[in-house]
């Protein structure tokens, strides 16, 4: 059996990671992440997902303008996918979207990869998609996720009281956001 060398098709290039289009050869890996108790707790996958269902998410769609954009996070040195990121709930009229990110391989937690992925997606959202605002919804207990958006200069916008049911109780959710003009002025300072 010949091991096929993993392929990477970078769409956005970073320093430690690249963002690539979803790879249907990695559907099983995505499915593993979505079902993993440790991962799905804060990613809020409340129902089991099978491979066929996940595959369906990535089938070509009829719509010409998408309301979701998905990237695989590819680790450059280790040459493998470690998670995914992207934009959902894109509202083209209001030019806003929600950022999501997930590091599925727990060995890669705490290494700044989600922060880098978020930085790339935000830059893409403002510079290529012409968005005006990028939001992030985070459950209050998920401190490491809060740090990701804070490092990317998002501002805390809302505390949604008792919004999410986790481990038997209703907990608060937080909404963070960054406006295009804020992002641009930070870019200028750099």
């Amino acid at each position, binding site marked *: 059996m010949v091991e096929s060398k993993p392929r990477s098709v970078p769409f956005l290039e970073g320093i430690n990671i690249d963002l690539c289009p979803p790879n249907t050869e990695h559907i099983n890996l995505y499915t593993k992440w979505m079902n993993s108790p440790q991962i799905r707790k804060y990613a809020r996958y409340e129902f089991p997902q099978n491979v066929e269902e996940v595959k369906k998410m990535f089938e070509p769609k009829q719509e010409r303008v998408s309301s979701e954009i998905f990237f695989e996070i590819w680790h450059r040195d280790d040459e493998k996918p470690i998670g995914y990121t992207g934009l959902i709930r894109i509202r083209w009229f209001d030019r806003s979207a929600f950022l999501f990110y997930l590091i599925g391989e727990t060995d890669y937690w705490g290494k700044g990869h989600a922060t880098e992925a978020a930085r790339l997606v935000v830059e893409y959202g403002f510079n290529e998609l012409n968005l005006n605002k990028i939001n992030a919804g985070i459950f209050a207990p998920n401190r490491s996720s809060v740090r990701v958006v804070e490092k990317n200069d998002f501002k805390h916008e809302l505390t949604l009281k008792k919004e999410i*049911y986790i481990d038997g109780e209703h907990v608060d959710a937080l909404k963070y956001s960054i406006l295009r003009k804020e992002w641009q002025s930070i870019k200028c300072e750099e």
Partner: protein
Amino acid sequence: MTEKQDIDNEGQTDHFPFIQGENLELCAPNSKHAELYAKWKNDPIVRRYARNVIPRTLDEQKKRFESKQEKYKDHISFEIWHKKDKKPIGRIGLGWIDWVNGWANAYIWIGEKYYWGKNVATEATKLLIDYAFNELNLNKLHGGVAIENIGSWSVAEKLGFVLEGIEREEMYVDGKYLDNKTFCLLKEDWLKRKNNKN
């Protein structure tokens, strides 16, 4: 007049009250009123803050009445029926129902502008809140209101909704980005309020 309004041309009952209020009823949507619903959705003034930015056809509206396969709805809507005037005047409902986390977005529009500022939105919303908490067992309701839509957020405040925060430049209306006031109502606070009043 009384009886006639409830009967259509074929002699069938044509009025489906689901929740009884003092001046209003919340009824199951009626496919015979599709034209009226479509008119409201396209009305330049009614749709302004409702963010209907794309023209809606009557066919689209009719399609909404086709029965769906799903066993649990993530969207429940009613027609608001004015009892004294015997006619539908708007729509109200719950969108984005999240059954696991126990919340939904409450929305309302009074399509007949004659009834604006006459407290009908307050009464209808009160009926919807009771339904959401006492029948559906939801824990929380959301209401998002454009900051300039004063009529709507005064209804929210009157009913005990609490301001959660302000979303910056959240929606694009009439050529500019508007902030959005986000309100919520927790079931526990609603019950407390009710008990205090009794």
